[in-house]
């Protein structure tokens, strides 16, 4: 699944629409956690992180673990500074009004798996 497939399939709002992305890059997998210490240790590179944590440190984790994207669940929206940093670091951010449970369920149904699958 590519980022564009993901965004379309889950009707995600893009928070970083100006970012030019590699439309053909495949996502490696996914992870869901609101504890960034846990995400830092376990999120897969080139994967997507689903979280309700909107602190700036989400981006530091994304850069460190080389995430392909972050989805904020339950309609959580980070502050403007976080979105600006994401554009600078070239990490696409998405928002879903659905809960993390539903977002992950849909991603799983589309074939995405966790890092230890």
């Amino acid at each position, binding site marked *: 699944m590519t980022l564009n497939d993901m965004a379309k399939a889950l009707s995600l709002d893009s928070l970083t629409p100006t970012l030019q992305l590699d439309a053909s890059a495949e996502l490696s997998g996914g992870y869901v956690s*609101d*504890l*960034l*210490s846990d*995400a*830092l240790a376990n999120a897969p590179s080139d994967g997507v992180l689903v979280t309700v*944590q909107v*602190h*700036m*440190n989400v981006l*530091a*984790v994304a850069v460190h673990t080389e995430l392909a994207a972050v989805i904020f669940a339950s309609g959580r929206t980070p502050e403007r500074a976080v979105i600006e940093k994401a554009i600078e670091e070239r990490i696409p951010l998405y928002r879903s009004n659905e809960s993390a449970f539903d977002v992950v369920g849909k991603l799983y149904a589309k074939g995405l798996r966790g890092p230890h699958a």
Partner: protein
Amino acid sequence: MKRLLADLHIHTALSPCAAKDMTPPALVQAAVRKGLAMIGICDHNSARNAAAVQEAAGKDLAVLAGIEITTAEEAHVLGLFPDAEAALATGDQVRTTLPETTAASRKFGEQLVMNTQGEVVGREPRMLSAASAYSLSEAVRLIKQHKGIPIAAHVNRPSFSVISQLGFLPADAGFEAIEVFAPMGSTARANELASAGLPIIASSDSHFLSDIGSCRVVLEIAAPTFAELILALNGQRGRRCCHA
């Protein structure tokens, strides 16, 4: 300069997770018995019992009024203040963002407001165990507005610490100290904390009388006061905090 023992993170019966016998006179007595010269009263999201503990202590023990704020990220941030009024004002701003208690939440612990004698004079109606609406940076700013010292609480604990919630200490968080709960765990973590360049204090986070003073910091200060604590944290004028 004197070498004095301080345990700056102690709960009272106001915190729903603390024992009911954490009354002002009982915890003062326990602290004095442990040889502490200074304690901090840091209940969850409120400082309504801090003044009662200060009065109960009289001249036997220095008591700093504080608070332990649960931020929107569910990270715990300590604030220690120059006086009880500043702590109370901070707590009042935080409390109003908390939900009301419910019959179900009250089963998880009472929130007892006490007088100097340890008598129950009220019950806090807001759910103090909940996360406030203050983000980490807003909580730090609020503490500083009230002339308090913002401290990242128990960073080597697996839950409710800035590090567990946010992966690591944000560089611009504005903390003036880091609190650890001994033992430190890995040397790597100890080195990581040291690299933040902030003073490190150890405290017990006591919820029970028997835990008071089980973890504490040694302060080399002239007297057990808030002003001297600030000098010790900054390593100024011969004051310092040690890890003995």
